[in-house]
């Protein structure tokens, strides 16, 4: 099922941060993980992933470093910072409240 861009816009950054919080990763692997975890629902526009990562790095939520990947290639990895963890926690609380409210309205309509 294809999800509309407007719905995706608000949730992409939090999903990326969540995946990074589960373990350090690099760009291509991140896209694959997101695809797997969403059971094929989210096929992230790969080109726009890096501006999001760079913005989050600028804001201090993640940091980057270089290391060898499993395939033996040198890659730029990202890991979450302490500030990023705090931000993720706040965002997830907000998301939970939001989805609860929306579901409340939708179930009420049904």
């Amino acid at each position, binding site marked *: 099922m294809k999800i509309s861009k407007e719905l995706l816009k608000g949730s992409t950054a939090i999903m990326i941060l969540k995946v990074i919080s589960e373990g350090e990763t690099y760009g291509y*692997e991140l896209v694959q993980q997101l695809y797997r975890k969403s059971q094929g629902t989210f096929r992230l526009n*790969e*080109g726009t992933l890096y501006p999001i990562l760079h913005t989050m790095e600028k804001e201090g939520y993640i940091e980057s470093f270089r290391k060898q990947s499993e395939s033996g*290639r040198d890659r730029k990895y990202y890991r979450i910072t302490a500030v990023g963890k705090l931000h993720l926690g706040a965002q997830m609380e907000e998301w939970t409240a939001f989805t609860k409210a929306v579901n409340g309205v939708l179930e009420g309509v049904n």
Partner: protein
Amino acid sequence: MFTISKELQSEIRRYSARIAYDIRSRRKREEVGREYAEHLEDAVYYRIVQCGMEEMDAFRDACDELGNVTKMQELLALTHNKDPLPMSVKVLLGLLCAAVVGSSYFWFENKIYRAYFVFILQLCILVLTIVLLIQAGRYLRALHIRRRAYRRLKEYAAQNGLIFIRRANSYRSIFQRTATPEWILETDTHRYILSLFATVKRRQELRLTDFQLYQYISVSGIRNMILLGAGAGAKTYSITSLGTMRSIYIGHTFHHGGQWGRLNVTLKLPKGFHLLPEIDWSSAEHPTKQNVRVLLLNPIPMKIFVLEHGRLRPSGDDDTVDGMRIWSASGLVSHLEGVRISGKHDHA
């Protein structure tokens, strides 16, 4: 460890460099380009090893998956290019300079009134010098950007077997509008006729209108404009709906109230609007190839709007206005690269 061929590695590096092209900092540009190159390598590797694709097919598919290059360039430029100094900081710096200049005079002169007069004079000279330097700096920047675009297109043409022709002075349009398309870029099937249009001020919005001068006259003073289209008929538009005005003087023969007459009037365009230049396209057109008229914005402004049929709409790279494609130099190269890599027909 599986490795891809040197030719493909080179293609990947070029493609990635193009994505990062609009990032001003050289260090950041190389870093981001490298990251995209590594991403493409992984994507290509996956397609070759897991899906059994051929190298170039895997590369094309990976590039498709990556998305629109122009969009990525815009996002990366927004993320990595530094914001200019805020106005408050500029004012403070200006006052500090003025204070230093003014106070230094008082160390040597005792006559207060003369000192004040000379101080103010020096301040004015300082401000004027700064303004002139800023203005000169803008033009120097525009010249530099134009030169870079020229080199880039020339190199791209040489690398890909295209024809690049310089028909007129490449820098004149920075200072005044020109009617002759300056550059031509030719593929096997298409001729891109490039007319250069410059926006010198960095943060300027560019507003284009497809009005032609001879089509508009002001009949009843400041309230209305009458548009005379081809053939009979007239429409009126309220000037106040178009915002702050600027004057252009024209003379025109018109048909009004059942009579022909001549009216010399002042035509008012909204502030900041640029009339699309009347360009002599026919002199540059190829007899057999498909001719694509291109308004090449270089330097490109922060935002572009188009006034069409009385409505203002946002515009940007890869738009069409008045029969012309609107592109920046990077946007044009992205379009050509997309056509080359995909192998599809160019629908420009």
